[in-house]
């Protein structure tokens, strides 16, 4: 066991810090222009696609360097690493793993240049947690697929150039075997995007309709019927929870400041033992989340298969979100009724807890796959 970093890793950390000194946007939140400059600087540096192999245009950074990069960035409240989170986190790696050479040449350079935005089409109106039951159809017609159906909750579909989507190609096959992955341009005729207003008032997700949408057969990623394997791998590319832990530390800083500014019973809330203990409880959980992430990272480095560990951190995080936002509402007292930054946050966090698999689904995964209890 050793929590020290090597000299080379410390040198990399210093490099990240000076990069941040030079390129961190001045305003908070950053302006559009500042965001563009930030993404451009990252692209120049080669840090979009940080962990992608060099032969695919990536930076070829190690997992530890990636950990350092993410942690330093979150510590400084930097904007996300690139504007295309989904593209860089799971679409690109899926194309590297399953794509043809032509697909790799077409999509990867665009992704790395920050020129494309991807959206992800898993969920459907009738299909949520039970994703493998998805119904959106693609039928083969010569050298084309014809897509009919709908995807929902599609984040960024209104800005995306492409959709990374799962369709059913063989309704006769068993649930898991009839699914195929397609990479589709959002400008194809027959695609319609309708915004779905979110409870925060921010436009983030949409419903996408596919009406006889024709795409060439080479839009397929992997073989026909292999889509489930692609999804499973893509979901495994989910976050380890390390950088989220650093984000939560910044959230905790803000919450401590709020506890100092607000009053309970005529005294600063930060003097209330119950408030202080709650804050300390968050701090311990955040440390646990970060350390869990490091323990799983070590497993990955030792070449042990990534298991169901991300479910653990997704649950720790979900619990933290509820507790932290709930405390800020309590601290605000009657002002919790007003509009404001904290108040909007206490609505918005629900999306992160639900998206990517709800807590109940994570508990099912842990109890069934790790504890060996009977399936639902």
């Amino acid at each position: 066991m050793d929590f020290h970093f090597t000299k080379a890793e410390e040198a990399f950390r210093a490099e990240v810090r000076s990069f941040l000194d030079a390129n961190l946007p001045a305003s908070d939140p950053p302006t559009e222009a500042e965001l563009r400059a930030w993404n451009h600087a990252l692209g120049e540096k080669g840090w979009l696609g940080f962990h992608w192999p060099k032969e695919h245009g990536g930076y070829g950074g190690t997992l530890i360097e990636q950990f350092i990069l993410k942690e330093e960035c979150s510590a400084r409240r930097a904007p996300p690493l690139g504007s295309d989170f989904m593209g860089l986190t799971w679409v690109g790696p899926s194309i590297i793993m399953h794509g043809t050479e032509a697909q790799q040449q077409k999509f990867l350079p665009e992704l790395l240049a920050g020129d494309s935005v991807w959206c992800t089409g898993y969920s459907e109106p009738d299909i949520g947690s039970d994703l493998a039951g998805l119904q959106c159809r693609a039928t083969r017609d010569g050298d084309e697929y014809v897509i009919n159906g709908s995807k929902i909750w599609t984040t960024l579909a209104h800005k995306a150039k492409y959709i990374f989507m799962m369709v059913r190609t063989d309704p006769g096959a068993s649930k898991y075997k009839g699914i195929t992955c397609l990479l589709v341009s959002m400008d194809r005729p027959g695609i319609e995007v309708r915004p779905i207003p979110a409870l925060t008032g921010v436009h983030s997700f949409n419903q996408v309709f596919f009406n006889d949408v024709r795409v060439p057969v080479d839009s397929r990623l992997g073989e026909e019927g292999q889509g489930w394997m692609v999804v499973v791998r893509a979901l495994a590319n989910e976050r380890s929870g390390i950088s989220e832990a650093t984000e939560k530390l910044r959230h905790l800083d803000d919450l401590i400041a709020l506890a100092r500014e607000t009053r309970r019973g005529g005294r600063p809330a930060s003097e209330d033992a119950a408030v202080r203990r709650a804050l300390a409880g968050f701090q311990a959980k955040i440390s646990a989340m970060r350390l869990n992430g490091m323990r799983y990272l070590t497993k990955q480095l030792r070449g042990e298969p990534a298991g169901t560990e991300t479910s653990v951190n997704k649950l720790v995080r979900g619990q933290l979100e509820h507790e932290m936002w709930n405390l800020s509402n309590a601290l605000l007292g009657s002002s919790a009724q007003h509009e404001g930054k904290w108040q909007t946050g206490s609505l918005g966090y629900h999306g992160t807890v639900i998206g990517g698999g709800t807590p109940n689904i994570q508990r099912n995964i842990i109890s069934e796959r790790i504890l060996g209890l009977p399936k639902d």
Partner: protein
Amino acid sequence: MNFGFSEEQDLLRDQVRKFLDRNCPLDRVREIAATPEGYSPDHWKLLGELGFLGLILPEEYGGAGLGWTDLVVLLEETGRSLFPSPLLSTVLAGALLSDAGDAAQKSRWLPGLAAGTTVATVALLEADDLLAAEGVQLRAVADGSGFVLNGEKCFVVDADFADLYVVAFRSGDAPDDLGLAVIERDTPGLSVVPTPTLDRTKRVGSLRLDGVRIGSDALLGRVGSAWPAIAAHLDRGAAAVTAEAVGTIEGVLDLTVQFAKDRVQFGQPIGHFQGVKHPLAEIYVDLESLKSLTYYAAWALDESPDHVALAVSEAKAFGAQAITRAGIDAIQLHGAVGYTAEYDVQLYLKRSKWSRPLFGDEDYHYDRIARLGGY
């Protein structure tokens, strides 16, 4: 960065687990817990022979010279099997002697601790249960080159087993006028009163000191500057109790998962119902987080003194809550058999009652985390 155990540590775990499975399965735990002694001197001797008792003591005094990340492995396993023994107190007393004693004192005491011929414990708390310098009120009055001690120590772990006590005392009225004395069991004026505990695998008692005379050779470090040594002992103690808690939670989780697979209601194993399987998943999540916090605290004790206080308090606070919750949920998930003396799950609930307050409960450590964080 490497957050995993080494091959040697995995081997150590195997070895300890085999020893405990063979020599002290739960029915044996119950037998031993029912005896007046409360532990098996045979096991104790074997542990000494295997080198487990001196794991973190220096090699020159008969120890193995290993660190806290190794000790954690041992304690996790004894916690998992609810092993009844004065291991924890002896290890902690050894660490304190090793930390604060001079060469002569170490040569005199440590080899016996490592070999299993001496059982030792630290007596710190008093009737008002205050884990702080002001909590130490037992008075020492100078007497020639030594002192005479009068007062009472409470909540002393394994008090009745011990041959040797490290006793914290007060030599003056300034907050830090504290000293530490090593006192043998048969010293005139010293008496031990066992306190009945819920968890019969863990024994606690009080010490009465009536005019106990100690010479200067019994003083650990300088009188009037013992607080740093005591504070370091408190951190080690919290880490050790938490390491045992990790194993205990794992033990009760395994037991309850097995029960949920075996017990059938409504035509299904109860583990099929989410009302049963989800709380078990939550215990697992707590366990994973607690492992991470505990291993990190152990590493800090070995390698990074500046991080010890925070790391230990985070682990102990989280652990106190996690073991409490695991104990409660495990009983409830068993239904009425969980309420019987016959089923083993009650043993883990009782262990949680011992573990939670020892070296500070969650509130104590959350307060400390807040203080360290400046809020």
